[in-house]
């Protein structure tokens, strides 16, 4: 098991190097001159050239990448064009809001995903199973940017239960209650489709387990259906549940991006969007990199957890 995990970690490091190159190259090959963008169209050609030299844009690509990478390892991601502060500061400032949103969404995804899966898969072909399956189809198909707007209209504008902007959640004097109220709508928006996918896949796992002989025997021993679902089969469903839940991290990131924008949630996703709108390349680069790193490391952790949970791979 230890060797398997070390292999995984090694592979992850290689992937991260690849990721850094893609992020670097993507904005490098983008049409238009970065120096020109920074200085604006009014700048003279000499000033643009001078800035190109200062930024090292006139040197070979691989050398630029090396320098960028070395700076990156020191935690230096360059300076934001629009904000004038180091990008690392911007990211450090915003990442907590994003991690909070991700954490809450992930919690909703796994808890409700498992709950719905057990309620539908454990009672296969019941009315409840059918209703949950239908609900999951709807949740899986809702585009997050639209679901966010609809929730905003219903619960923010019409019913006025929840605040319509997430900014207040990060105020210094925000109490736990205030934070939670701000968090609910964005977290539900982010979690919806992942929750549905987790529920659907785990439901199949439950259905498979229900056909196993040990369940028959448990039933013969007179154990209740509830006990069979929540204790007997749960253990065997967990590995596939953890795997599918781990795979959702990526989708959660994608959805979180949209809900941050819709709910004005002051996280990395919103910052990335502002960076794109303002053509602030260092910020875009930094945000994409930060999200990719958290994503890759999250996948690694999910992988290790599922190795540890699966008796066949534990070795």
């Amino acid at each position, binding site marked *: 098991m230890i060797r398997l995990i070390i292999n995984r970690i090694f592979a992850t490091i290689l992937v991260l190097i690849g990721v850094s190159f893609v992020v670097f190259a993507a904005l490098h090959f983008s049409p238009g001159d970065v120096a020109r963008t920074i200085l604006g169209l009014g700048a003279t050609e000499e000033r643009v050239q001078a800035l190109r030299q200062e930024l090292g844009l006139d040197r070979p690509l691989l050398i630029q990448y090396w320098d960028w990478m070395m700076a990156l390892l020191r935690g230096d991601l360059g300076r934001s064009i629009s904000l004038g502060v180091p990008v690392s500061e911007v990211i450090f400032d915003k990442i907590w809001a994003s991690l909070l949103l991700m954490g809450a969404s992930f919690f909703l995804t796994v808890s409700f995903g498992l709950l719905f899966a057990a309620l539908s898969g454990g009672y296969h072909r019941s009315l409840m199973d059918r209703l949950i399956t239908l609900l999951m189809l*709807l949740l899986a198909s809702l*585009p997050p940017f639209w679901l966010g707007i609809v929730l905003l209209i219903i619960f923010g504008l019409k019913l006025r239960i929840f605040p319509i902007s997430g900014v207040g959640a990060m105020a210094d004097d925000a109490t736990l209650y205030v934070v939670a109220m701000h968090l609910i709508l964005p977290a539900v928006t982010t979690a919806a489709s992942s929750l549905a996918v987790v529920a659907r896949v785990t439901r199949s796992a439950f259905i498979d387990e229900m056909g196993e002989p040990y369940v028959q025997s448990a039933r013969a021993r007179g154990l209740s259906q509830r006990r069979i679902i929540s204790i007997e089969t749960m253990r065997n469903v967990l590995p596939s549940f953890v795997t599918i839940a781990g795979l959702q991290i990526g*989708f959660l*990131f994608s959805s979180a991006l949209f809900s941050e924008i819709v709910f004005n949630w002051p996280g990395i996703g919103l910052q990335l969007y502002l960076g794109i709108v303002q053509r602030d390349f260092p910020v875009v680069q930094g945000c994409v990199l930060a999200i990719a790193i958290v994503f890759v490391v999250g996948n690694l952790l999910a992988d290790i957890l599922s190795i540890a949970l699966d008796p066949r791979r534990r070795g």
Partner: protein
Amino acid sequence: MRLISILSNSKAYELLRTLQRDKSASTGLWLLIVFSIIVLFAPIIAPYGPNEAIPSLRLAPPGTPGHLLGLDHQGRDILSRIIHGTRLTVITAVTPVVIGALVALPLGLLAAWYERLGVLILRTMDVLFAFPMALLAILVTSSLGAGIINLLISLVIVLLPYYVRIVHQAAASQKALPYIEALRVSGTPVRTILFVELLPNVAPAAIVYGATVLGSIVVTAAGLSFLGLGVQPPLAEWGVMISEGRNVIFIAPHVAALPGAALTLFVIACNLLGDGIRDALDPRARATLSYQANLSK
């Protein structure tokens, strides 16, 4: 394996019949047929042009006489824009799913045949896997610039790693079979083996994946347009319409809500059909079906 033999024996007909028996899959199929008709005849069906504006009726609610779904912030008929928007929404989702498969097939086949090249190709795909789907699409479009063509390119790139991995898996399992060995021994040129013999046997796997992923690509495509990175206003596209409606949700929520409802319905249709195709071709799902059939005997 089963999945491959079903389609390669040209039993698309059998697939269709299986889908027909599957109630939710046939619902999806019918919905998609209706959407296809709307795509083909949008200008005839739509009561107004997509950019025909009646400024005096700006933001009029649904039910306004002559305008079933109301009007948007520029006084354009929302129903007409939704109908016209079907075209771009379908095009921006289906095109990358098709082109992605066409690009991934040779890549996956080559990766399975030449092992060293395969390592290179698959490791590259692993790097692309490291980005959440929407993030990679955003990175590519913000680097290439907004617009429909760049949107399509970015979605193809987003799909590639998934497609290549699936084609590679299917091709690698075929490669070990005797018929390939026989072809190799008899001196058949590699390109004939790959593109004449192997291709028809791995293509179904790619097609099935394409069908199941269509729903998420629809959402991603519309999402990029929503962010201003894809289709640009004033073109009628659902993501663009939701984005425009977002500015007026305080006074006229229907402007953003209605195109999103159309989008959701379209995604539901894609997911229903995609799940149905996967279930019909997945041996495990079939096994459960026959197991249930045995129980009911």
